[in-house]
């Protein structure tokens, strides 16, 4: 196992549909305080570099990075923003440490999406202005298009997607940070209104506010300060073409590439047996199955079959989203990837509380997607 960069601190706020009691700064401060306390580091002296993952339009500020330093302890320190997903932030932190420039890095990502009143308009504004935007409407129809093609190509069914919803929302009941844990049946999901057919209302994760901070350290520093380091042994990220007409709608090729990159670094030859558990982006129910397929956690076309056999259940052979995922915890926008990664690290430490996987887990995968209309994702392999 490559012991170069370790996770040495984790902190998060609860995930909630609205957080009117907090400004966005106060929300980030809470997660940062928890992470630095967990790492046992004073951010004003002992953390060398700070990275936030955020996007101006979600925040409602232009040049948002300038609004970051104080609430994460980074004023007059090395600080920058990644306009992307949390795992892309982890990748930058990994490189900063590997370059030798710094020994400790804090990576923050958050959602204060309840401050945005026109979510679907911002999504639509992310579409190509000439070729796609004039079509109008709520861009979630892109997920409907992708789901239809994926179901046709993959031998998965609408009922399989409903099973993912039931599994993840049930798992979330054990996660105190989650907002949307509930007990459902597949019939409940299949009788929820069609929103962007074949996508139904319960196939779509709901937006939440929340902040997550992870502290990373070099091997030398990690051994000095941490009794339970979780090692980042592989990391990758990839973007498909922005031309949505040119994408392969049945596959998540960005996830194939991102996970391939991470596996190569981690020396993983056979992901379906080498990975003990995974946290996979599930902003839409079918996405979990598509991502399982893309990350080669099953043989081609077997994601649905294995799901039905219970392989991905809480006590299954390869548990997926025991945290509850985005369907159960809520959609944290750019922080979703960092949430996936955080949950993997907690499991490997044995600190996941009531949603700790019963069997011993040594190696986990987190896989992210930046959501519609992007085809960008990240993957990180962590080990103990």
């Amino acid at each position, binding site marked *: 196992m490559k012991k170069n960069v370790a996770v040495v601190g984790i902190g998060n706020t609860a995930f909630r549909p*609205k*957080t*009117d*009691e*907090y*400004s*966005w*700064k*106060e*929300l980030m*401060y809470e997660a*940062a*305080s928890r992470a*630095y306390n967990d790492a046992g580091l*004073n*951010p*004003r002296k002992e953390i060398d570099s700070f990275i936030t993952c955020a996007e101006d*339009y979600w925040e*409602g500020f232009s040049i948002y990075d300038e609004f970051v*330093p*104080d*609430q994460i*302890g980074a*004023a007059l320190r090395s600080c920058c923003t990644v306009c992307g997903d949390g795992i892309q932030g982890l990748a930058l932190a990994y490189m900063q440490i590997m370059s030798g420039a710094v020994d400790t890095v804090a990576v923050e990502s958050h959602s*204060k999406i*309840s*401050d*945005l*009143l*026109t979510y679907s*308009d*911002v999504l639509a*504004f992310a579409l190509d*202005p*000439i070729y796609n*935007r004039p079509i109008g409407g709520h861009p979630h129809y892109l997920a409907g298009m992708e789901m239809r093609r994926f179901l046709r190509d993959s031998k998965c069914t609408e009922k399989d997607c409903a099973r993912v919803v039931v599994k993840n929302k049930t798992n979330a009941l054990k996660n105190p940070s989650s907002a949307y844990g509930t007990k459902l049946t597949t019939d409940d999901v299949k009788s929820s209104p069609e929103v962007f057919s074949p996508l139904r209302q319960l196939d779509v994760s709901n937006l939440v506010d929340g902040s997550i901070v992870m502290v990373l350290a070099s091997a030398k520093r990690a051994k000095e300060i941490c009794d339970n380091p979780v090692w980042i042994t592989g990391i990758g990220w990839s973007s498909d073409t922005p031309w949505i007409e040119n994408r392969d709608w049945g596959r998540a090729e960005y996830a194939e590439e991102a996970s391939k990159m991470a596996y190569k670094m981690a020396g993983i030859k056979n992901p379906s047996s080498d990975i003990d558990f995974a946290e996979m982006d599930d902003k839409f129910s079918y996405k979990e199955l598509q991502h399982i397929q893309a990350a080669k956690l099953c043989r081609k076309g077997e994601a649905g079959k294995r799901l039905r056999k219970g392989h991905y259940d809480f006590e299954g052979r390869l548990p997926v989203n025991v945290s509850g995922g985005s369907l159960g915890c809520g959609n944290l926008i750019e922080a979703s990837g960092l949430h996936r990664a955080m949950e993997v690290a907690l499991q490997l430490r044995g600190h996941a509380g009531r949603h700790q996987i019963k069997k011993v887990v040594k190696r986990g995968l987190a896989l992210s997607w930046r959501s519609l209309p992007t085809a960008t994702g990240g993957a990180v392999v962590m080990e103990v």
Partner: protein
Amino acid sequence: MSERIKHWPGKRLSSKELTGGKVTTTKTDPRVKYAWACGEAISRFLEELKNGKLIARKCNSCDQILFPPRMFCEDCFTPTNEWVYVKDTGTIETFSISYLDTDARRIKDPIYVGVLSVDGASEKQGIMHYFGGVTPKTIKIGMKVKAVWKPKKDREGAITDIRYWRPLRRGEK
């Protein structure tokens, strides 16, 4: 242009040609609306403005009084400890005299904008605001100023509840 370069090759387009369909462009009008939750510190600050008062937060670990108030201290990275009222007088730290409006049109009466530190708060703790009752000749760094508030009925919990800051008069506190 320069000594060596007298003109650029090509044809200069007039704004008429640009807007008159000679050049292919596309227009967009994004609908982006926000309602930021102000949270603890800003909410209290805005409420106090309606009462004609300025409030700050004290950090007990570095003894600084932070204005505008914050629930955490960026120097110590600890929660701040108590609410403290500060005065509506202060000192000009720096300023600019703005002769252009937001559309870059020349305005006759310039706008005096600057940062002032507020009396009762720690060093470098203050606010950016307008100055009034000054001329380009009389306004100075280090000048003592006092807030000119809107009438109570017109205040809405915004920093513009203070109209501007004018020079402190002799003997005034």
